[in-house]
């Protein structure tokens, strides 16, 4: 026992290990610089500088309360009225964490899907057309077309194409979550942020959702918070490990899962804590 512990080599473990993605085919689309998030005086994110590769899936993992959801919600300024976010959030070279940024226009480019499927109490069609209509699209043909392509991209079209005018609240949990994805991609964002999108779903719906995300990464850059480490392993190229408001390790997913450099990451991905 004593010996094996020693041999595993705790001495080589690092305190923090960050490898930002460097892949010419997938240039950085979004990055955070010197990002700090405060709830009142309490600092919720103290070290969270990450670069996100375009058209890839990046998973944010970590124990409850580690700040990964807070970090994600800061990326499209959903924390504006809740928390104080300092530092820069660079999106294609523009700092979107400035007061002069039109958050409504920015959120069209950086869409978000939440933990709990949250369709509006409207028809399936109206749910997807909602954001388009807000932006003044009234042409019926255009709306029809976008509704259809969005639903197809979210792998929901075949199940609901005859029920577009039925209430979205009648959908099952998995269908409702894919409707929320369709609703988010209807405005053709660049980046899709997902906050534990599968945590309220059964295994079959989860697996379908993961397939959908793998399809979507051709057109979107995806950042996903997940509690499910197998899920991170299955779908993401990069994984960031959060603990107590800090990113402790960031690397390719295969490195994080097979050869973590930080002790806590190692404990977490092997299920010893968290």
């Amino acid at each position, binding site marked *: 026992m004593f010996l094996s512990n020693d041999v595993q080599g705790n001495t080589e473990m690092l305190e923090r290990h960050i490898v930002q993605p460097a892949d010419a085919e997938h240039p950085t689309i979004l990055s955070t610089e010197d990002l700090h998030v405060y709830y009142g005086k309490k600092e919720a994110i103290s070290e969270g500088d990450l670069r996100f590769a375009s058209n890839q899936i990046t998973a944010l993992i970590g124990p409850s309360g580690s700040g990964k959801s807070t970090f994600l919600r800061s990326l499209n300024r959903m924390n504006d009225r809740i928390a104080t976010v300092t530092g820069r959030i660079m999106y294609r070279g523009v700092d979107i964490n400035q007061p002069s940024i039109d958050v*409504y226009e920015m*959120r069209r480019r950086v869409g978000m899907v*939440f933990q709990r499927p949250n369709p*509006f109490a409207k028809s399936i069609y109206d749910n997807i057309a909602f*954001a388009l209509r*807000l932006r003044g699209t009234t042409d019926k043909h255009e709306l029809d077309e976008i509704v259809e392509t969005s639903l197809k991209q979210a792998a929901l079209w075949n199940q609901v194409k005859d029920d577009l005018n039925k209430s979205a609240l009648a959908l099952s949990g998995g269908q409702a979550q894919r409707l929320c994805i369709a609703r*988010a991609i209807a*405005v053709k964002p660049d980046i899709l942020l997902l906050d534990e999108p599968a945590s309220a779903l059964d295994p079959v719906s989860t697996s379908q959702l993961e397939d959908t995300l793998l399809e979507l990464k051709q057109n979107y850059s995806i950042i996903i918070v997940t509690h499910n480490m197998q899920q991170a392993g299955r779908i993401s190229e990069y994984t960031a490990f959060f603990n107590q408001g800090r990113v402790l390790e960031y690397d390719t997913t295969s490195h994080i899962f097979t050869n973590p450099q930080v002790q806590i990451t190692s404990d977490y991905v092997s299920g010893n804590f968290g």
Partner: protein
Amino acid sequence: MMKSTQQLEQQLKRHSKAAKLEIWGKVVSFSALILIVAVVVGIIGFVASKGLATFFTNHVSLWDFLSGKSWNPGVTDANGKPEVGALPMIMGSFLITVLSAIVATPFAIGTAVFMNEISPNKGAKILQPVTELLVGIPSVVYGFIGLSVVVPATRAIFGGSGFGILSGTCVLFVMILPTVTSMSVDALRAVPRYYREASLALGATQWQTIYKVVLRAATPGLMTAVVFGMARAFGEALAVQMVIGNAALMPGSLVDPSSTLTSVLTTGIGNTVMGSLQNNALWSLALVLLLMSLVFNLIVRLIGRKGRLQ
């Protein structure tokens, strides 16, 4: 073996203190229920028997009562029929109720939106206590302020006596505003937070979110709030009686003295003899009031059910 089984059975069947308390609790709550039901049935039965006497004992036709324009129960008209036309009061009650609801609703919903969506902190600190205070002010105070401020103001602006439906509407507007506001706040609060988040995350502005998502989702609750406000306006007696002028005439305009069901009841009920036509006619007005409040309750129920089905 046998003995221990018997012991166990005895223990299990013993009437413990807890079991006795349970029976007591059931008896007490059941008798409370019986009492309430008895009171409600008693009131409805009493008002109905008195109110219907006008039609069955005094042989006034229901149509004359509902459509007649002249209210003077002690006097008989040229055909020898008593003058018990309640239309002016029914009209007065409905007009004043609908008008005050129309005026109060936008203010109430606007206040509720401010309190719940735009500035929850200030809303909770300032507006919440203010609305609660407004609810607690006795109606005679509202009536007195109406009498000494609103009536002279109406007189100065529109001429005439100043008494009338317009003054009544002004007073009722302030009286039902807190009711409608606090119920609207409840309705907005019941809209799940994730609706707002979903809308904002899609790039909707806060106003678009309020208008297109929150208010839509809260519509059944907001309608309930308005109907409750109308029920309160319809049933309010004292304050209205003080400013409306109490002339049982068809309201020619909003600034003519007129009357409502409640104001005629409060002014007339002490001046009649039980069992006389004058007295029965007042009971008939009370019956109309009672039926109307039942209708308001029914509407609230229907809206609530429709809201749940969504």
